[in-house]
Structures are given as structure tokens and as C-alpha cells.
């Protein structure tokens, strides 16, 4: 039984078919890239997996459990975390509090404790604080822990979003355009971070990315979407030369040949 499977996933926005009969099967520890031109339905697939949209048709099975139609928090608690294309940090909170909120499963006290603050409460809070600081250190953000998340540079905000997703202790991580808006140096650094994080936290990853250098380098396998349909699937070297993929990105060749 594969780790994560999507079967015949179809979703409409009104009359528009955004995702059509999408299939995907991932083994544990795999890193799969999801690419396609703008509006191809990539982010919609993420929103369907993470429960923001309820799928019209099709099944999503994660570790032998159906998660299609679950609420976002329930999906996350099953072990799937994600980042967002347009960064969605908690801007009013400090950097470390962004992590603490996500590390909900490590909190270790209930509502009564939070109202009366027994000694155990602060023991747990200190443990949580230490754990979150260690996680921030991994992402090179610990020096800025007390600052507001909105004070971070753009690239660092992307890193913080990944760190926050990992704080929920997922086994499947969905990254939505992690390299968007990064310069080549930052993108190079990001590649290293992604591969390192994957090993360090024993993650399976699904990544949407427009930066071809990044996606070709990190992915073991790539799925190409266009107008909601899967048009190609395979290892990076294969995808790079697939005529249908080139057509989807650059248009038909013969229109110019004439």
C-alpha cells in the first residue's frame, strides 16, 4: 500500500473544471515535484489535499486512511502540513510564537491549566520554548526569535513558513512555490535546505515550483498539470524533453514555423 494516494480527484469552480481526474501515488520518503503553467490547478490540488476545499469527486488516502473532505485542522493532525504561495505567517506575533502555535501537539496542558497556571504549566511552556528555539536554530532564525514575523526579509519569511509547518510534526509536507521571488543564490540555498530538512525530519514531500532549476534538482519525480489535466509524469530528465510539456509552457512549434 503506498504512503499517499490521490484517485480521480476532480474539482469544479462553478462551471470551470479546475482539476480533472488527478491521480498521484507517493511512496514514503519520496520527493515529487508538481509543475505546470499558471492556472493549471496546482494550488487547487494543494487546497483539496489540505482540506481548504472539499473535493467534488475522487479519493485522497493517507497512510491507509481517507482524508478527503476533512477540515484543514483534522488533515494537519493526521500528519500533513503545508506552506502557502502567498505567505501566510501570523504577522502580529513574534517569530517564536509563530512556531509555538503550530507546535500544538507538544503543548502538554489543557484549558484548565491555561486558566490557573499551576507549576506544571510553566514547566511545559519552558520545554516548548526550548524545543521551538532549537527548531528556529535549524532554520537560522533563532537570533531573531523575539521579533515580529513581519520584520523578516522575504526569503526568511519563506523559511519561517517551512519551519512553522514542520513544527506541526508532519510526515507529508506540501510546499507551494517555496522559491517564488528568490534570487539564484537564495534559490540555491533553498535547495540545500529542502533536501536537508527532508532527511532530518524524515519527510515525504510534494512541491509546487515555477523555478525549473530548483524543481529539476530536488525532485525524484515530476508531475505536469495543464488546464487541470495531468499531461506528463516521470523523472526530471524525461520531463525536460517531453514535447507536451514544452508545448504547454511555450506553445505549439508549428505556429511560428509557418
Amino acid at each position: 500500500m503506498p504512503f499517499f494516494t490521490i484517485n480521480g480527484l476532480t474539482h469544479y469552480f462553478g462551471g470551470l473544471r479546475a482539476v480533472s481526474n488527478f491521480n498521484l501515488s507517493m511512496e514514503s520518503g519520496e520527493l515529487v515535484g508538481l509543475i505546470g503553467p499558471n492556472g493549471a490547478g496546482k494550488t487547487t490540488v494543494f487546497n483539496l489535499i489540505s482540506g481548504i476545499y472539499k473535493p467534488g469527486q475522487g479519493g485522497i488516502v493517507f497512510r491507509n486512511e481517507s482524508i478527503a473532505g476533512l477540515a484543514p485542522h483534522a488533515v494537519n493532525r493526521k500528519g500533513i502540513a503545508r506552506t502557502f504561495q502567498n505567505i501566510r505567517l501570523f504577522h502580529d506575533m513574534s517569530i517564536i510564537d509563530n512556531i509555538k502555535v503550530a507546535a500544538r501537539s507538544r503543548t502538554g496542558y489543557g484549558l484548565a491549566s491555561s486558566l490557573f497556571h499551576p507549576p506544571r504549566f510553566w514547566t511545559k511552556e519552558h520545554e516548548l520554548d526550548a524545543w521551538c528555539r532549537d527548531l528556529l536554530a535549524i532554520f537560522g532564525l533563532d537570533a531573531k526569535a523575539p521579533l515580529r514575523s513581519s520584520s523578516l526579509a522575504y526569503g526568511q519569511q519563506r523559511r519561517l513558513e517551512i519551519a512553522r509547518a514542520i513544527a506541526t510534526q508532519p510526515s507529508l509536507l506540501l510546499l507551494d512555490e517555496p522559491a517564488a521571488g528568490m534570487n539564484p543564490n537564495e534559490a540555491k540555498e533553498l535547495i540545500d535546505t529542502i533536501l536537508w530538512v527532508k532527511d532530518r525530519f524524515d519527510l515525504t514531500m510534494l512541491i509546487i515550483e515555477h523555478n525549473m532549476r530548483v524543481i529539476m534538482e530536488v525532485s525524484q519525480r515530476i508531475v505536469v498539470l495543464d488546464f487541470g489535466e495531468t499531461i506528463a509524469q516521470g523523472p526530471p530528465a524525461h520531463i525536460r524533453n517531453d514535447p507536451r510539456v514544452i508545448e504547454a509552457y511555450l506553445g505549439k512549434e508549428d505556429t511560428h514555423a509557418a
Partner: protein
Amino acid sequence: MPQTKRNHITQLILVLAGFIILQTLIGFLSGQRQFQYYSRIFFLIEINIILTASLALINGYTGQFSLGHAGFMAIGAYTSAGITTLLPKLLFGSPLVTSSVAGHLVFVLSVFAGGAMAGLFGFVIGFPSLRLRGDYLAIVTLAAGEVIRAGLRFADFLGGPRGIPGIPAFSSAFYVGGFFLLSLWMMRNFVYSHYGRACIAVRDNEIAASCMGINTTFQKVWAFALGACFAGVAGGLFAHMSRYINPDNFGFLKTLDILIFLYIGGPHTIAGSIVGAGIFTLVPEGLRLANLEGWRMVVYPLILILVMRFLKDGIMGEREFSFLVPWKYKEMVQKRVESSKLTVDS
């Protein structure tokens, strides 16, 4: 400038000692007829602070705009007064008397019961309505508050529109001060916990919060019910201070008062509730003393406009009173700042 533990404790002791001395003084003064009016204003400030802070949990921290807060205060007031006044009247033919020890015990329990009942109503009303957002939630909570008031007018066994007269005057300086401290302490604790952080996360970015495993509906309902609960406690104290309540005490105008306290003081901190409710309970009384009572409705909106124009986040903004921040929390933040300085320098 880092604060030492000694510093923090001294500060806390000074504030508490000052509070207790003031409260004792007020307690003595309230016994004398010519000072009764001033002591009542003081109690009213404390009750209004509890109300405002409880609304801050919902509107300020969780970012859900509720317009029905006076309804929950009414639930608390009626439950509490029902237990100390109506029930004993029914059973023994007269309300509880303030001279008996049992009476005091029942009164304390009745305030807790008022809080619990209001919390329960908050839960029942919050569960369906907190799935709504923004304006829709505001309208539904407004309606809920009015339904509570209208319901009380029809409830004959609670006095109907005539209300409940002859409530024993249990709300002494001791009880009002005690419940005031307990309520603020519990709300402060809630804010500095995982639940408080989760509330701010929901306000900040609801989609991100839910994708990080926070059950946003549940979180909102808890904050709503907890806010309602403390409003109920305030209602119980109010009933035993004013000694007479009727449904129209708790109409939309009362909610509006609390909202003004909240947004003028600052909805994001407990300090904001204290400052807002403190000042704005005093302003109308001051005008009354200066024989300018009619100007209340001119001065109120004027201050509101000025604050909203120049201090968008209220008078206190993001500033919290230092003595309200738990020492262990300060310690945690200070450690972090120190370690971050080290990493920056090296």
C-alpha cells in the same frame, strides 16, 4: 533594560498593596452615607473593567466582532439575583440577608453560577453563530443579545419587564475587589497560554491557523464562552450592587458602552480594558458632578473620534502593564533576547 525577578515582585507587591489599601478605604467609606455614591462609582469601574476585558477576549484577541455582550451580563445578573433573591423568597418568603454567614456563602456561589450560566449560553449561542464571519457575526450576536433581553421581559417568574427589586447588597468592597482580581488573573493567564496564542493566530490568519492544526471553530467558541462567562460574573456583582435589575439595564446601549471602553482603551491588551473602562466610567460621572451631564453625548463621541483618528489601536495600543505580564514569561523572553544578542555579535 532587563528587569530582575526582585524588581518584578516588588512592583507586583506595590500594585497589589495599593489596590488592597484603596479597596479597604472604599470599603470603610461605602458604610457612610455621604460617600456611598463615590464608592459605587469605584465598584462600577471594577465591574466595567471585568466586562471590557471579557469582551477583549472575543473582539480584541480572537478578532470576532460580538455585539451582544450585555446579554451575557444579563444572564449572570439574573441567575445570581435569582439565587439570592427570588429563590429564597419562594422558599422562605424573604430574600437572603447580608448578616448571615450562609447568605454570604450562597452569594459567592451565585456569582460563580451566574458566570457558569452565562458561559453556557455563550457556548450555545457561539457554536452555530461563530461559523459566520465579520458583519454577519456582528448581526447575529446583536440579535442574540436582544433575544435575551426580550426573553427576560416575557419571563414572568423573573419579574418580567419590572425586573427584580430588593436584591440584598452583597457586593461589598471585599467581594467586588476579590472577584475583580480573580477574573483579571484568570483572563491574564488565558492570554499568556497556548489558547491565547491560538486566539491571536485565528485573528491574524484563520486559514493558516487551521492548516497548522488549530480547530478554529472550537477556538472561537471557547473564547466566546469564556468571555460570556466573565461578563456573567460582572453581571452578578452588578445586580448585588445596584440592588435592582430589569431587562432594560442590559440592552444594546450597555453593549455599546462596553465596546467604547474596549476600543478607546485598546482591544489588544488587558491594560487597554483597564484604562478604557477606568477613564470612561469616570468621565460621565465627572460631567454629572460639574452639572454638565447633558454634554455626555457630545464628549463621548468626540473622544472616540479623536482616539480612532490618532490612536488606531486605542490608548494603550500593544502596551501591556508590566505587572500584568507573568514573571516566568518575561524570563523566557529575556533569555531569548540575551541569546540572540550573542549570536548577532559573534
